[in-house]
């Protein structure tokens, strides 16, 4: 049981000061810009919600948002099942576990623009293994010209980059399951599927929630890798929200619209994270009730 003690605030003060410096002040700057316009010379005047309306109605924002949503959706749909499957297939003990873990964690620690560079090189038709290989079996592949190829390259790159995180999380959840659960299942003559569905999946639910949330946030915020590989092209085909935002803020220096877009972007992430969290934990409660009901049956 935790004790009530307001002096504990003192221990939180350093974190608060630091995060205030690196989060609250910048965020206030953004809020400040989002409701003002300027003609230069540091003269600002109030425009209210004008920028927000402009952004929310602009075709450009809608398209970027849809592309980002589609990207995150595809990423989750591929990486989560694949990650679970690999984690299930991992060896349970011995030297090979360390070897697998180290090799799998490797892509996670490569700087993001180097990840971009690796795939930019790997996919090139003239000097890349992937591009050259596909060309030599007669597939017309060019990620700088063809929209589908660009998307496929980015998705495979992200799967390459981040699936290991899902694997590591799920694996840690799986090794934490006590052996007695499996023994009980064997006595009941449970099939492999029901072992997975009723023992393994519920037990890794907590880490899986973390994996889904982290993967969602990071794929929704992705900037560096697509910027290096495709630069948002061909055309605007891979211009995700973050790329669009940086272009607007740093490239065109449209501070007001960029600030308004930043806030909307941030709110979308918060909202979707909350939805994921609520959906996944409410399902948790239902299965608990289900178990109780099943247990209560004569």
């Amino acid at each position, binding site marked *: 049981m935790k004790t009530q003690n307001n002096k504990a605030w003192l221990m939180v003060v350093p974190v608060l000061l630091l995060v205030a410096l690196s989060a609250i002040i910048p965020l206030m700057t953004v809020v400040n810009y989002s409701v003002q316009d300027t003609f230069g010379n540091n003269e600002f005047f109030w425009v209210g919600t004008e920028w927000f309306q402009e952004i929310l109605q602009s075709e450009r924002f809608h398209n970027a948002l849809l592309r980002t949503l589609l990207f995150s959706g595809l990423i989750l749909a591929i990486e989560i099942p694949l990650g679970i499957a690999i984690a299930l*297939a991992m060896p349970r003990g011995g030297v090979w576990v360390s070897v697998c873990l*180290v090799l799998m964690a*490797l892509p996670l620690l490569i700087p993001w623009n180097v990840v971009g560079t690796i795939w930019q090189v790997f996919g090139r038709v003239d000097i890349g293994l992937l591009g050259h290989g596909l060309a030599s079996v007669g597939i017309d592949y060019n990620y700088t010209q063809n929209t589908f190829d660009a998307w496929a390259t980015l998705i495979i790159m992200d799967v390459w980059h981040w699936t290991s995180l899902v694997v590591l999380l799920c694996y840690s959840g799986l090794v934490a399951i006590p052996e007695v659960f499996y023994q009980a299942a064997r006595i009941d003559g449970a099939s492999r599927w029901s072992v997975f569905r009723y023992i393994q999946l519920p037990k890794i639910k907590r880490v899986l929630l973390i994996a889904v949330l982290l993967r969602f946030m990071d794929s929704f915020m992705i900037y560096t890798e697509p910027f290096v590989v495709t630069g948002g092209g061909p055309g605007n085909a891979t211009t995700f929200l973050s790329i669009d935002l940086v272009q607007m803020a740093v490239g065109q220096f449209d501070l007001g619209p960029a600030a308004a877009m930043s806030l909307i972007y941030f709110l979308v992430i918060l909202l979707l994270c909350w939805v994921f969290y609520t959906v996944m934990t409410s399902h948790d409660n239902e299965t608990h009730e289900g178990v109780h009901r099943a247990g209560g049956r004569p």
Partner: protein
Amino acid sequence: MNTSRRMQYLKAVSVSAYIVFLLLPIYWLLNMSFKNNQEILSTFTLWPTDFTLDNYITIFTDPSWYSGYINSLIYVLMNTVIAVSVALPAAYAFSRYRFVGDKHLFFWLLTNRMAPPAVFVLPFFQLYSAFGLIDTHIAVALAHCLFNVPLAVWILEGFMSGVPREIDETAYIDGYSFPRFFLRIFTSLISSGIGVAAFFCFMFSWVELLIARTLTVTDAKPISAVMTRTVSASGLDWGVLAAAGILTIIPGALVIYFVRNHIAKGFALGRV
């Protein structure tokens, strides 16, 4: 028994296939880093026919290249130390006490992990310009605290909640003061938690480019930004680029190797 044997076989094959898929692009980069530019562009070979270390020599002798690595390591280590040392007392407070607004504060901290770096680029630049900190290592280290401090608090809180409260109480009865208890006993109890938190701070600070690039000009420029600049300027020297990429993988690989046992344990215990 036959089906389970086949199952084992299938598992081994799929895990191996996955690892091959992970290593193939890295292998290709490694392969390129040992070739000269002419060989890369003119012939297509699976291994270097004219093996050369020139690309690595270029990097280790040119200060504009190797200072990038030093800069990156300096701010990453600064960030890791700051984030973990600030997060330790806060995580203790969250795991042991109830206080006014604790849940809201914890959740608010986590929302900072969800803030897109792209949103913070411009305000960060203005903030650190105002303090005259642009192009210093500490500016990048502080800016990366935005996402690393919440993560460190989250991880450490999970580990600390795994340590029974009775240990704290026994220590106080034995006459330990709080700072002495915390530094002598408690930190050693959660050492693997500290290791995991430091690993994640190192990782996320090492791989970040957007903020690090914005806040630096020359003196503190990270290696990843040096790479992008050289790509656009010197007409694509693929060999040097590949060698530089390979060298950015090495620190990460070393860190993983040292914490490999903690990671498996840490994931299971903590809330990562």
